[in-house]
């Protein structure tokens, strides 16, 4: 019988002990003594969130396919167990072998959102690994980070030995082989990092020095030893069908956020929304073939026993064989009690027809993401959705039996005016009016329900808005009140609902997103003072953070409210993410003139991603 790291007494006195015991269906079991490399794969948030992320499961399987590697999982202990572990000095452990993370060769941490940064420090701390790379000894694991936030790794630079920039499938084998080679000859940590640093996509922060101008902006950012390149280029898979997806997804016992088979149908996006980091850094769009997806859908449903499959991508409607894929899923699985969920679909006749087949119309709601309240501002952000398309989609949906609509917006976008803000209320009202205009009284099933929510805009690296100024907390809230007040004036006010995100959290996210190495001290100070699980609003303590900035003498506004000049060197400029700075500058200028850029299928805009040699850039050109 498996032994657990925690005693029965501890497990029975904390919430959801199943978070910590492993043994889920499809867990990989190996003898740790029989492998060369032990890799701890960490998602720095609670189990239910981490287990819903497909990226770590792709890598989990990929690593474990190698006989010489045993990859195991680690998550952030919830606050109840965190307290017990500190009190009893219990080291953080992996779910599979339940061995201390400190005994592993690697600790890989996925960086999915900025607000998990204090949880990274928690994981290191509870593992009894020194927080800073420079304090680690030869026996400590190599700490490596990857994922979307690795596109600006600088706020985390001192805490990581290396970062992996790009898609995990590309060069991890090379990295592990290099580690094995160094281990065999008894080489040092430093020697391994030297070898790793020349692998494409690998960034070793300790090998670069940064100097600053008097105004706090970066003067120089360059390698501090020979043989290290000044630019790190992201690595991608040019033909996504050549790599394996997940053949045996882990099936948690407890309900997790994504409690279903998640099928990634494509990577990247053709749309070019100017606020979207994923749409830029994951370029070019690369589709999986229909055959590949049919095969994985069948395999994954069979091996997990899940009763639901969901398609995943940034914009599913752009998948060129969506109709064929959805028809296959319905024909093959609908009769077997399997639900099919289709998020991120454009609302049109086709998607409504599909949705009426796979969902209970009475229970589901329709989602539109206009992102901005006016056509003018939608042109600024290059969001192709028009008011006409929304109203037409909503009308069709109302005829199809739906009467609940969700609308997603952002507030604080560059150039935003009061008219743009009020447009959120006006558009919501128009959707509600459409219901009453289109559906005769006797056919209505109750009132229409329109829920509009707005998040606050955070400029992200590698987007055309990376130069943009961000609003202050007060400005954000002021804008939300303007929208709220406009809603009050609407005729169908009672059918409308408006809510908005937390402003404090957004401002901090803005600092971390475009932060530099100086932010690391603030992170550590905030963590030391008790900041943890910042992405969970009930655990977010803004006062701790404000105090930490003050203690470290760092001004938040420098990172948020300042519009950057085109000549400024950004902390992330040493990364080549494919999209060129010239392209981003061009887009930033077009945004200012409210000029839209066609999507990749309409016309190539020369963003730079073509050099990766695959995907949409080469469609119809064979």
């Amino acid at each position: 019988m498996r032994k657990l790291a925690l005693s029965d007494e501890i497990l029975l006195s904390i919430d959801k002990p199943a978070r910590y015991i492993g043994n889920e269906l499809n867990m990989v079991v190996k003898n740790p003594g029989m492998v060369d490399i032990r890799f701890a794969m960490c998602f720095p948030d609670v189990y239910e969130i981490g287990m819903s992320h497909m990226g770590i499961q792709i890598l989990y399987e990929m690593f474990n396919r190698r006989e010489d590697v045993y990859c195991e999982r680690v998550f952030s202990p919830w606050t109840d167990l965190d307290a017990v572990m500190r009190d009893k000095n219990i080291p953080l452990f992996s779910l599979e072998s339940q061995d201390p993370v400190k005994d592993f060769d690697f600790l890989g941490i996925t960086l999915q959102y900025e607000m998990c940064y204090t949880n990274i420090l928690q994981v290191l701390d509870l593992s009894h690994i020194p927080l800073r790379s420079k304090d680690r000894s030869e026996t400590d694991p190599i700490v490596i980070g990857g994922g979307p936030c690795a596109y600006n790794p600088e706020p985390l630079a001192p805490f990581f030995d290396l970062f992996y920039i790009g898609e995990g499938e590309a060069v991890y084998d090379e990295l592990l082989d290099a580690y094995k080679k160094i281990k065999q000859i008894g080489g040092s940590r430093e020697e391994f990092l030297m070898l790793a640093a020349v692998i494409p996509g690998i960034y070793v922060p300790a090998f670069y020095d940064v100097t600053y101008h008097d105004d706090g902006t970066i003067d120089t950012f360059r390698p501090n030893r020979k043989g290290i390149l000044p630019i790190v280029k992201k690595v991608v898979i040019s033909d996504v069908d050549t790599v394996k997806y997940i053949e045996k997804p882990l099936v948690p016992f407890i309900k997790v956020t994504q409690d279903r088979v998640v099928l990634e149908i494509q990577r990247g996006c053709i749309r070019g929304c100017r606020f979207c980091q994923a749409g830029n850094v994951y370029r070019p769009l690369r589709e999986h073939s229909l055959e590949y997806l049919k095969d994985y859908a069948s395999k994954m449903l069979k091996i997990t026993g899940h009763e639901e499959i969901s398609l995943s991508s940034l914009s599913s409607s752009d998948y060129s064989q969506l109709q064929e894929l959805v028809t296959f899923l319905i024909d093959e699985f609908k009769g077997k009690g399997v639900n099919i969920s289709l998020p991120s679909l454009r609302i049109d006749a086709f998607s409504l027809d599909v949705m009426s087949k796979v969902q209970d119309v009475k229970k589901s709601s329709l989602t539109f993401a206009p992102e901005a309240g006016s056509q003018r501002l939608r042109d600024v952000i290059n969001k192709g959705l028009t008011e006409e398309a929304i109203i037409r989609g909503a009308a069709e949906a109302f005829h199809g039996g739906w009467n609940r609509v969700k609308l997603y917006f952002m507030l604080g976008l560059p150039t935003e005016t009061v008219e743009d803000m009020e447009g959120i209320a006006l558009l919501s009202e128009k959707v509600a009016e459409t219901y009453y205009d289109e559906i005769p009284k006797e056919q209505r099933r109750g009132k229409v329900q329109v829920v509009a929510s707005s998040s606050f805009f955070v400029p992200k690296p590698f987007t055309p808005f990376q130069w943009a100024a961000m609003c202050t907390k007060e400005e954000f809230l002021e804008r939300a009140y303007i929208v709220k007040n406009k809603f009050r004036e609407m005729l169908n006010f009672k059918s409308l609902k408006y809510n908005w995100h937390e402003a404090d959290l957004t401002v901090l996210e803005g600092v971390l997103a475009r932060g530099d190495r100086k932010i690391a001290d603030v992170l550590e100070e905030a963590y030391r003072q008790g900041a943890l699980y910042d992405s969970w609003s009930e655990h977010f303590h803004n006062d701790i953070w404000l105090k930490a900035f003050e203690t470290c003498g760092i001004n938040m506004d420098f990172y948020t409210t300042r519009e950057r000049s085109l000549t400024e060197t950004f902390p992330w400029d040493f990364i080549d993410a494919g999209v060129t700075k010239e392209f981003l500058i061009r887009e930033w200028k077009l945004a200012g003139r409210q000029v839209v850029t066609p999507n990749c299928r309409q016309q190539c805009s020369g963003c730079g991603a073509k050099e990766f040699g695959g995907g949409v850039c080469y469609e119809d050109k064979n």
Partner: protein
Amino acid sequence: MKIRIKFTKQGTMKFIGHLDLMRFFQKVMRKADVDICYSEGFSPHQIMSFAAPLGVGLTSLGEYVDIEVNSTGSTTEMLARINAVMVEGITATAYKKLPDHAGSAMSMVAAADYTTSFRTEYEPEDGKTFSASFKEFLENDEIWVKKKTKKGEKDVNIRPMIYSLNIGTNKILMQLATGSSANLKPEMVVRAYLDAAGQELAEFAMLIQREDLYADLGMDGQRRLVPLSRLGEDIE
């Protein structure tokens, strides 16, 4: 066709709660390609019901789930198929066809066997005295305890719900009333004794395993307990 599956819940699986176990079995049915019946309606669910929820922290050798199927293979084949997709700690040990008119495991369950012991650091200092005075305590015709109900607390005489109780070397075997009409948990029995003896039962002091669940086929107030698995037949 009604089928009753008996299974174990051992080792680390004792930390999996009842609702999660139910979800786990739904997936097992699909993975093992059991031809289970679904309910009607827009979101059909499997026809499946469990005998009696087992508390988190308890292990068991005798858990039961009833399902309804359209067709089935033999007992041997179905056990092999089901166990091929299980996890360590959960094993199906019986697969029986029930008579068409059979009551569900949930409605039939009347008693359970438990083996309980004290964890090492919680053992009574003097085992002999403990066992002698516990036995004496059970000679009482009435044992009154406060039981929590939805409306607060009420006094309950648990003595009639203790069908048998044997004390061995650091081991107490109990047969207790279980089910919707009368239900008694093993800790409650030990706590009642310790309360009477002026002692307290520490949290986590007991290790408890459920051994089997029984139906009462007796008539006229005469108890005749039969393991739930015996109410069905193997399929050849």
